């Protein structure tokens, strides 16, 4: 990002998103604050059920019906997305904010041909004629690396392989040149060589269109390869935010540290890995105080009773831990 002052594209304040279930409220996102700057590549990392997808999908309000946004604001280009009506939001979705999901089969319509699906955002947002939109769609399909795009645009999604479906999905989501692209585990369902191809495509499109990228992943390798800054989530909370080099080289939160040490690649083979004991807590009844304290080796009395706030401890490095000083 250099020395110039980065401009904020998205600002999330005190966001709480709970899911209503028969066993009680699942506190998936609990008072999260986050800034995302224009043109950056930001990564949300965390384990299953930590709330990373809920946080990301709350931005375009694409949450399941039992989700309740209880408080907070999401400012996108000075508009509070949470205050918009559904029809106002529809104008932004797909045009300014686009989402690529993990499972492309579930996000493409199986009974429509691929071409028209990729063309649809143009027709919906820019009142382009279908004929023109289809021409652009074919161009976009070729841009994302679909061979014979003219021919393949007449196929149904089932005729596409997993990697091609994800490419088609990316074509659809970038055809309006959005300013924010949210990619929720876009390569988790793909093979390694295909994953590398798709990640490269996302990087290229980001540069070409000047997108801001919000990537959600549980893979630290992808974080290292794709992002400028990263935020680590644990049990509905953001516990650390920093530039990507510091996340790997000088993490401050014990959870981030533990995860980095778990990453297999760092150890010589056949040695025991360091491990975080236990498993993530239930979000219906999360632990009091710091939510990580039952698994934390450094927890003391304060951690059990008082919840740590996410504070900036050095330039651009935020952490929510009472004992971060001793973790340096």
């Amino acid at each position: 990002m250099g020395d110039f002052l980065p401009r904020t594209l998205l600002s999330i304040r005190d966001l709480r998103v709970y899911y209503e279930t028969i066993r009680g409220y699942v506190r998936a996102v609990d008072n999260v604050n986050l800034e995302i700057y224009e043109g950056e590549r930001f990564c949300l990392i965390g384990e299953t059920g930590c709330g990373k997808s809920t946080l990301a999908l709350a931005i375009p309000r694409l949450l399941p019906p039992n989700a309740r946004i209880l408080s907070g604001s999401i400012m996108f280009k000075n508009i509070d997305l949470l205050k918009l009506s559904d029809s106002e939001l529809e104008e932004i979705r797909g045009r300014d904010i686009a989402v690529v999901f993990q499972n492309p089969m579930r996000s493409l319509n199986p009974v429509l041909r691929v071409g028209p699906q990729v063309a649809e955002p143009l027709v919906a947002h820019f009142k382009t004629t279908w004929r023109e939109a289809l021409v652009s769609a074919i161009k976009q399909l070729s841009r994302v690396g679909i061979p014979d795009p003219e021919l393949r645009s007449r196929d149904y999604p089932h005729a596409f392989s997993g990697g091609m479906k994800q490419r088609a999905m990316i074509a659809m989501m970038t055809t309006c040149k959005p300013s924010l692209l949210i990619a929720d585990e876009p390569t988790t369902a793909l093979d390694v060589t295909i994953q590398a191809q798709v990640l490269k495509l996302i990087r290229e499109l980001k540069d070409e269109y000047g997108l801001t990228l919000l990537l959600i992943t549980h893979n630290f390798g992808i974080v290292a390869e794709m992002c400028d800054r990263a935020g680590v989530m644990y049990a509905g909370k953001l516990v650390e935010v920093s530039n990507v080099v510091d996340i790997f080289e000088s993490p401050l939160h014990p959870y981030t540290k533990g995860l980095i040490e778990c990453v297999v690649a760092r150890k010589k083979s056949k040695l025991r890995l360091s491990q975080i004991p236990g498993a993530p807590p239930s979000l219906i009844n999360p632990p009091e105080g710091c939510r990580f304290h039952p698994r934390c080796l450094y927890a003391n009395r304060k951690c059990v009773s008082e919840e740590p706030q996410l504070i900036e401890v050095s330039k651009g490095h935020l952490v929510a831990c009472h004992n971060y000083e001793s973790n340096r």
Partner: protein
Amino acid sequence: MRLLEVRDLKKYFEFKKGILSKPQYIRAVDGVSFSVDRGTTLGVVGESGSGKSTLGLTILRLIEPTSGTILFNGRDVIRLSEEELKWFRRSTGIVFQDPYSSLNPRMRVKEILERPLKIHTDYDEKTCTEVIVKTLEEVGLSEEHLMRYPHELSGGQQQRVAIARAIILRPLLVVLDEPTSSLDVSVQAQILNLLLDLQSKHGLTYIFITHDLLTARHISDYIMVMYAGKVVEYSTTREIFTNPKHPYTVSLLSSIPIPDPKLRGRKRIEVTGEPPSPLNPPKGCRFHPRCPYAIETCKLKEPELLEYSKEHLVACHRASELDFTELLTDITSFFA
């Protein structure tokens, strides 16, 4: 000492498009040979559709091979008598990727672990429970989990139960089919540690099937890379990571996202396209349509798996002339 020897193993699945059409064959495993020594771990690495899971199931005779030989402790697994097959079942175990779907949801942990004991031993009720509790403790669970149902356990605990079931009869060989892929990073580390502990304690032999090279590297002594039903490279883990010879292995190494932001701009070979359909694999070398180093010979002649150096086998026509050392400097120094 050699525990398992597999020679020219083939497994073809018949596939018919319609009732009247001529059957086609999916060549899932197509002429695979390798051996595993007692107490070591062989990592089998490949992308989806490479035949690695079919290989695991065929070795244990959970599906019947189309042809080939499997020697386990010197005995031909395919020609075992009923009595001997029972011995073979007792001496082998398997752990699958998804622990929840591999545990019967209607059985308690105790009943799940009792089954192998009831079938293969004549222990009385009391001894059974003792053995079960002892095995549970070995895998990091305890007596309190005895009466639980699988859905009451976390993913990591379920996988521990599945591992307990696989080792309760003290088998010689355990096939681990992506045992950590469905688990979170922190839980993955716990399970890998457990597997290493059990191996050193009981001298177990593992065949570890995975699509994740980094996990394979961590747990394996030897790595076998598969592509479209064939073995393309086999060597020690160290050699595979520092001196790979097959372009496919090199492209896999280039493709893994490495958890170090400084290696972002590293040199890589990028393969285009996708793995071939197993119904109709390419002629010649099966990797040639995606290989940046392919020459005319590769399109015509199928390369054999040949010894490149001691304990290093490669199936590539150009193995002796291609040199990836410079290309891989960044990665090899990371793994050194």
